[in-house]
């Protein structure tokens, strides 16, 4: 009795701790079983083992070439959209007129399907990096503008009154009070944007590219190498997840005070 109880609770604790991993492993096993037992053909749904085999059949250097192509475009597009979104948000926060003019324009841009515009951009800017970076930027910058503006506007009014009572210059109100207060919002925007950046890069590759993971997936599919396409897709998801996590790590590292308090 005395021994089974701690054992039981220990088991419960371990199961609880590894629940997400166990769920994931269970899912993969189930997937494998369905494919093998149901004799599902590889071109409909490849089994996990087939995907893994396909992954290792592609040379490592080829993976890296494609990864670098996608990552390069995604990160440049992401950086460009940060460079555009921050000044734009500050301008819109500072000037009511600018806000009234720009906000509708931003919404129009945001609601235009980028996939439809992408071919036009390629025609305009050519088939090289600049057009792909622009497509990525168009997809990523809206959440950044919204989150940065929201954050700056949610600064406690008393802090703004403190600034006014000191008759401090407006730019210091922006840099020393509003922007730091917006950091938690900015980072939630960045987390959304970084995953959109990967999507943007892949969309651009679908339209025109000779390398990149999106291109790789499309090309594998068109040659009916479905397990290989799946391998590319899963690789892409893992990269996307890692980028998302990196944004969180950067926030933890640079702005530990901005993390939500654990109660």
């Amino acid at each position, binding site marked *: 009795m005395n021994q089974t109880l701690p054992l039981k609770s220990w088991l419960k604790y371990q199961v609880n701790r590894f629940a997400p991993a166990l769920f994931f492993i269970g899912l993969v096993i189930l997937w494998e079983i369905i494919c093998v037992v149901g004799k599902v053909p590889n071109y409909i749904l490849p089994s996990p083992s087939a995907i893994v085999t396909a992954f290792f059949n592609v040379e490592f250097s080829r993976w890296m070439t494609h990864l670098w192509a996608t990552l390069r475009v995604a990160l440049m597009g992401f950086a460009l959209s940060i460079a555009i979104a921050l000044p734009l948000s500050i301008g819109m926060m500072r000037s009511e007129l600018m806000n009234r003019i720009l906000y509708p324009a931003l919404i129009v841009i945001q609601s235009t399907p980028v996939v439809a515009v992408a071919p036009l951009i390629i025609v305009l800017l050519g088939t090289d990096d600049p057009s792909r970076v622009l497509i990525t930027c168009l997809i990523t910058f809206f959440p950044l503008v919204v989150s940065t503006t929201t954050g700056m506007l949610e600064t406690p009014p*008393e802090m703004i*009154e*403190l*600034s006014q*009572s000191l*008759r*401090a210059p407006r730019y*210091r109100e922006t840099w020393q009070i509003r922007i*730091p207060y917006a950091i938690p919002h900015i980072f939630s925007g960045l987390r959304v944007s970084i995953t959109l950046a990967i999507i943007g890069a892949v969309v651009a590759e679908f339209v025109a590219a000779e390398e990149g993971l999106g291109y790789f997936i499309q090309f594998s599919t068109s040659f009916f190498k479905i397990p290989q396409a799946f391998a590319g897709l899963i690789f892409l998801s893992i990269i996307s997840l890692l980028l998302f996590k990196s944004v969180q790590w950067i926030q933890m590292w640079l702005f530990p005070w901005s993390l939500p308090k654990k109660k």
Partner: protein
Amino acid sequence: MENKPLESESSTGAAYVSMKGVGHKYDPRPDAAMAVQDIDLDIHRHEFVSVVGPSGCGKSTLLRMVAGLLIPSHGEVSVFNRPVTEPRDDVGIVFQKANLLPWLTVRKNVLFPLKHKYGSYSASDEKRANELLEMAGLTQFADKMPEELSGGMQQRVGIVRALLLNPDILLMDEPFSALDALTREQIGFDLLDIWKAQPKTVLFITHSISEAVLLSDRILVMSKRPGTVLDLIEVDLPRPRSQQTINSARFAELTDLIRGYIYEPNTPT
């Protein structure tokens, strides 16, 4: 000859902060209601004046007008015979919430007004910040982040921050209302100590009648919205005030008097 003492009397007791017929209407439409109206109040230099009144009667509005953050739509606020048209350098403000910046240490929060106003501060400013922190018993917390401090200590930091530029006028808008009763009483006595060591003209807004009586020289009692002056009460309790003050009969009389103003006219009992 007889006039001489009177004259010097009047010059030391002259109005320092003066409100004449002060009122404010946030809404510019002509039929809109006033938030505050007809406030006449002269505060002497280094006097401690409290304002009590029901919620929404315009206490914060009044404070903002003295701070120069809000220009009254009616009447005039002046400090030392100069109309207040913009925030003054010799005014420190303490808010209801401590409003510390969560990304700065306690010391840097205290130095923030200098950093914010001028862009930098000197070593001697830092020394002054340390002295103020020591006076408030916060030395050992100087390098901590605000979230590591209790509510009472955060509010102390807020007061110290307001004292940094050595203001002559200290405006406090319900500074202790977020604190528990015990902390609140202690910090009230501490405020009196600070006020005695570094005399300042204080305008103190509170919801607590006993706090107002305990701390003030005079109390402005305001009516319901639109807020106007119901009474201006002289608190003739001896200083220094202490726990005994609270137990005195006069203290009870004064609190009852104010309570009467706040509850009687509109309570259907």
